[in-house]
């Protein structure tokens, strides 16, 4: 569903991402982890078609994000780390606009279902400016889900959410993956990655240090006789690469 081949991104002399290749098949949830400045957000933004790659090929559902951006973008959703809503628009108007962007016919029923799922029904006529950060995050997620994307990119999705919101989001991510969507989650919360993801992609200084299933990562540590937590794995690999 998502395929990245030899992706490279440079800003003048700085190399943000170097020769990254990976694949996220439909139905899998990939955790993108790495220290600050590893190139996680740059990779997600490139996949979302917001920044062009310096080199390499990025495809979403078989469509090249550079050569065929409209087709690729129609099939994906990107939820940035900071929920950015239109201050003067109501929650419902955000959904109405999103339906119009992705040409979702008769969106109302699905929109109502999402509002109920994320406990936003009472807030449907509230303007975004009056929402808390967590609620804004929920609205952004509802908008992202509305057009049933085949690929979903999350950048630090749990920030600001309350425990119930976290649980709802996790469940919804599992549901989407079970329905065949390819999900990528960039996060510093290793517990979340361990709990939710089927695969792991560990980046450091623009390079991929590890990619594989979570079980493979744990097995690799077990072979060394070390503690098999993801946290230990993270520190071992990133410290080694220094």
């Amino acid at each position: 569903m998502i395929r990245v081949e030899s992706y490279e991104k440079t800003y003048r002399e700085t190399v943000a991402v170097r020769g990254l290749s990976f694949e996220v098949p439909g139905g899998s949830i990939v955790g993108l982890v790495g220290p600050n400045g590893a190139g996680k957000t740059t990779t997600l933004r490139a996949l979302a078609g917001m920044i062009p790659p310096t080199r390499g090929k990025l495809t979403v559902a078989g469509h090249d994000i550079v050569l065929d951006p409209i087709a690729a973008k129609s099939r994906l959703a990107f939820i940035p780390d900071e929920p950015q809503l239109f201050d003067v628009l109501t929650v419902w108007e955000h959904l109405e606009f999103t339906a119009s962007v992705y040409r979702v016919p008769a969106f109302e029923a699905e929109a109502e279902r999402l509002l109920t799922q994320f406990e936003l029904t009472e807030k449907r006529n509230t303007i975004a400016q009056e929402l808390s950060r967590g609620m804004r995050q929920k609205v952004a997620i509802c908008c992202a889900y509305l057009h049933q994307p085949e690929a979903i990119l999350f950048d630090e999705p749990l920030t600001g959410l309350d425990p119930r919101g976290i649980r709802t989001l996790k469940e919804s991510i599992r549901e989407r993956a079970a329905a065949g969507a390819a999900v990528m989650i960039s996060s510093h919360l290793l517990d979340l990655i361990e709990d939710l993801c089927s695969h792991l992609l560990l980046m450091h200084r623009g390079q991929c240090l590890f990619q594989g299933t979570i079980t493979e990562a744990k097995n690799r540590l077990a072979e060394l006789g070390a503690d098999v937590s993801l946290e230990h794995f993270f520190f071992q690999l990133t410290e080694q690469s220094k």
Partner: protein
Amino acid sequence: MFHSALWKLIRLKWRGGFRQLWRSLKTPRGCVQAIFMFLMVAYGIGSIFFVGRMSSAAPEAAAMMTGRLRDVAAFGLFAFTTWAILFSTGEATVFFTSSEVAFLFPAPFLRRQLLTYKLLQSLGGLIFASLLLSLFFARGAWLWLGGFTGTVLTLSFVQLLTMNAAFVRQMLEAKSNVLLRRVLGYSVSVWVLIAVTQMVLNAPSGDFAALAISFRNSTAGRWLLAPFDVFARMIFANDLTSFSISTGCVLLLDTMLLAAAYRLDGLSLEAALAISEKLTARIKLAQTKGAWHVLGSPTSQMAKRRVPRLPFWKGIGPIVWQRVTTNIRTSAKLFALLGGAALLAGGLAFGVHHKTPEQPFAAAAAGIGVMVYVSFLICMSLQNEIERVGYLKSLPISSVAIVMGELLGFVVLLSVVQGSFFLALCGLLPSVAGWLVCAAVLSLPLNFLLFGIDKLIFYWYPTRMAKGTPGDFQNAGRQMLFVLLKMLLLGSGLALVGVAVIPGVMLQSPLLAVIPAALVLLAECAGLVPLLTYAFHRFDPSVDTPA
């Protein structure tokens, strides 16, 4: 083909804006602000028409005024556009808000559709600005509607030209090397400098109209102003024929620029993303830390600028130290502005002294006046930090010490600059050195009073800087109300100082003037401190204070 969703977004945003306006009109405060602004606008428009009627009684005067406006309009437009292109303000034409970035950039839109959206979105602001400007031009225009259409097309031209320049710059930045860009940049700067120098030297006098006519009459000016001249001709057309010809030329120019913008297809999402992040950070900085902070952002190199640690002084010391350190690291351009003001004030004092050497007092007053005006200017545009108040309240320092520290941190720096200038001016005007020393001494309490009143009003009515939208009557009304209140309080304070100075001025004795003035000023400052402390104490940072 324009995407229907983008139409919907424009419509929803307008509806949301009106909804918000309507909601705030239901509150007494919002209603008062809107009515006040409405009255101010009505007064402005009324005075324009009143002057218009007066001048229509003397057709020669009106014709002369129109001719003068026409002469300077093309030059003014050229100067404004050049400024916009050179100083990258064209970036604003391709500025997407962070919510637009989040919703529109990953969405299936073509770049050209986003460009059209941006142009359509700015059209509302253009029409509103043109409406106001055309009221001013109405006196000189043959037909008001013609003047209005001309203004819309003129502003569109400036926008399209700066947008194209921004696209070309982005392309050059992506393709050329740093050295080439620097060489190009310096070449353009030197060329502009030479042109401006020639224009000033050839002008018969130093006023703007004379400079504009001098430039227009030069060979380079004729060529450069030709495209801008048609806009002036359209706005101030005398008859239908000249109006039709100039309108045809204007439409052709605008269409060419529009076609160039689409042809260049230079709206790079990456560059737009970078611009959005930069400008959003600036807006946030201005909203939270104050408009002047936008002028200079701190870098690691600035960490070299250090201030020695101050004694505790009941908590005033650390607050002043933090304030002064922040100011010297972030307000480099503010101090450059003060330096520029000092040069201007010095030049003015020198000029007055050169013309009337027998009146050194007038020369000193001119220099002092400019520097005091700069204080007013800074104070009026200074933005207080709402977020900082919460932090300050959490400190184990008394309210009075915090209030004093906050004020002194900026006031002392400003007064040192001004005082040094007044003392340096003594060298030029030794006969009034006494008065200049008095001014240097009084600058500290005067600035304390000025900025203290500003802080007091902020603690009473905390507001954030709002991004202005066309037709936002309440925001504009609120700002005008605050300025009026500041002027009223300051005027009352200074009136008392003025009364105290009278005996000294009458007796030509600086000492007799400065001592009562200083005493009155100090008494006012002392009276201000408990008021500020009380206002700070009762300030509730948890209460939301949007815009």
